[in-house]
């Protein structure tokens, strides 16, 4: 049984797919005027909405699809950083899309992932993530969040799968777990998830 969200409206019920505005993601996907060339790494699966969004822009999209690699047994969450595809990752990335994957990593794996991303990041790189913040539970597998062409998010409710306790990482916990990143912006979304944009912490 799924717990209702705490401190969020009824739309936060995770069994109901909803369109959710994600202003920070929308901003991150802006290429600027005039459009500038950039590289985006998507840790999730290839999706049509994102393709449509970057179509016609000088963007290179790197698809990692960590959930699929885990399903295939290629890597467990514990080995997530080893699954980052070095053979494709030849250009430093300007933005990383984590979707809801950080919820499925413990603090040690968060640190490892952040360190690994840092090695591959261009100066000014931003990392986007969605954290289950209000709800006590989340789907036991990443939800397969999709972005629409209007840059709103379609968040499946995890129907057909079970639910597990959400770690409900606080901003402070995330910054502590990922010392190479610092929170640039954060926003509570209409479905009770929290949207984060991290930036690289200046190196010593």
């Amino acid at each position: 049984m799924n717990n209702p969200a705490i401190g969020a409206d009824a739309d936060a019920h995770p069994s109901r797919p909803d369109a959710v505005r994600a202003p920070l993601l929308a901003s991150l996907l802006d290429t600027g005027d005039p459009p500038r060339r950039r590289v985006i790494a998507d840790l999730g699966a290839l999706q049509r909405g994102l393709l449509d969004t970057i179509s016609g822009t000088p963007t290179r999209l790197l698809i990692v699809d960590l959930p699929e690699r885990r399903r295939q047994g290629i890597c467990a969450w514990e080995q997530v950083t080893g699954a980052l595809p070095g053979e494709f990752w030849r250009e430093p990335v300007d933005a990383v899309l984590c979707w809801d994957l950080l919820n499925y990593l413990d603090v040690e794996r968060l640190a490892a992932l952040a360190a690994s991303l840092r090695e591959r990041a261009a100066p000014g790189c931003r990392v986007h993530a969605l954290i289950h913040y209000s709800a006590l539970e989340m789907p036991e597998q990443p939800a397969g969040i999709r972005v629409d062409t209007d840059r709103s998010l379609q968040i499946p409710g995890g129907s057909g799968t079970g639910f597990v306790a959400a770690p409900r990482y606080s901003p402070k916990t995330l910054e502590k777990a990922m010392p190479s990143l610092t929170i640039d912006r954060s926003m509570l979304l209409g479905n009770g998830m929290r949207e984060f944009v991290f930036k690289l912490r200046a190196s010593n």
Partner: protein
Amino acid sequence: MNATAMFNKRENEQDSSGTARNAATSPGADAGGARSAGGGKAAVIGPTISINGELKGQEDLVVEGTIEGTVELKQNTLTIGPQGTLKAQVYAHTILVDGTVDGDLYASERISIRKSARIEGNILAPRISLEDGAKFRGTIDMDAESEAFTRVFKAQTASPSPGRGSGPADKSTDVSKEPGPGHSDKGLGSGKAAGKPTQSTA
């Protein structure tokens, strides 16, 4: 013999370098052709056919078999059917993927990824369409002004090869001397395909 698996050895024998010229059946033979995405006839490499080397031509092609190496159909449509498996660098006008690809896909016009597609590599085309359910891992580049795109396709139109368009039997066509996709462009060229590099830089 399965009509879709026909392979005309007299017209399509491989040269000593392993290049299969005009390798598939002629679309002129009704039994050997298939419908391309554009509705016209396309040559077919049937599911029992396996090619290792360099394949090039000037007609649409449907692959249901296996190709390892390089495929060049820069003016035409390549369809990788549900049974098709490519471990190759592919250069075509349009590429439609239903099957499995381990390598890089370059299209001057469009790449369409169907739901049954399984692709690992890099793809570059001005337009890319995707059906839900397809599996992909690698990079996608839709920048027609990118260095890689220019090298693969625009340099070709600027200085066409002497053999370009001279017919399928013209063995003087040597694409290895054309400006091509190369493998030095940053980020593109996974080096995963088995075919030997055939392109020099522009």
